[in-house]
């Protein structure tokens, strides 16, 4: 548990830093892109992150499904 915490702490810190700098970079870009965008709320950022997260969840889901079925087959072969 302690090892997991030790691993997670720098990981989450890196993620926070990445998310922070990404948001800052996007905000700078948005500010430069034109007056029409300056009024945008943070909602589009959330939607973009949700879209990317959903895509990765689905791909990972497929990977896990293949690995589980392969494991089941190997157990069947073992019997």
């Amino acid at each position, binding site marked *: 548990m302690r090892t997991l915490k030790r691993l997670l702490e720098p990981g989450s810190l890196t993620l926070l830093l990445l998310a922070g700098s990404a948001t800052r970079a996007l905000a700078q870009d*948005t500010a430069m892109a034109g007056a029409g965008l300056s009024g945008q709320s943070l909602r589009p950022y959330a939607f973009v992150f949700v879209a990317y997260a*959903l*895509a990765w969840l689905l791909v990972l889901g497929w990977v896990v499904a293949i690995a589980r079925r392969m494991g089941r087959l190997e157990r069947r072969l073992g019997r």
Partner: protein
Amino acid sequence: MPSKRLQTTGTVLAVLGALGTVALHWMVFFWTPTEATMGVIQRIFYIHVPSAWVAFFAFGVVALCSAVYLWLGDERLDQAASSAAEGGMVFTTIVLLTGPLWGRIAWGTYWTWEPRLTLTLLLWFIYLGYFLVRASTDNPERGKRFSAVVGIAGALDIPLIHLSVVWFRSLHPTPVVMKPEGPTLHPDMLVTLMVGLLSFTLLFLGLFLHRYTLAAATHLVAVRERRAQA
């Protein structure tokens, strides 16, 4: 296991695809400029379009393998078709989930029954039918043949999806890359899109090879078990 080499190739391709996707994420969030009209939400484009491309490619593989399977009756072609269909379903689901998120901000609605969206949803249901047909017959061979027909018929929807924005009045943006006069995207955006297309294709090919190996191994085990019982 039928082919260790196929699995190794699959792993190499999937890892290359995953590394490419890490590069894609960096490009999307730190390098590519923000689109002037739609703003930040346009960045969904870099996973939405590659997912659509991979889905179409996968269903193309399904149609091709299914047609040759109906002709030659080679079991491996059916295994390749069903493996590609599974990947196609995953990537079509990504398209159908990311598109509405984009639409909510760009159009003010998650969903509208316009031609491209409707035809893409239809494509998803056709290939869902592909798996249902396979599972619904008592005779597995007949199920494979029926599903091969569905796999071929389903692919006919792909050119319709592509051309629907040109043929009908549509809310969906028209193509910005595959145009007769050439791409009209900003060069940085085009490079990012290309990295996305390449990464997603490699990722799909890698996972497809693993899925195909699994299908082939399952078939072999089933055949051996049947022989042992006889």
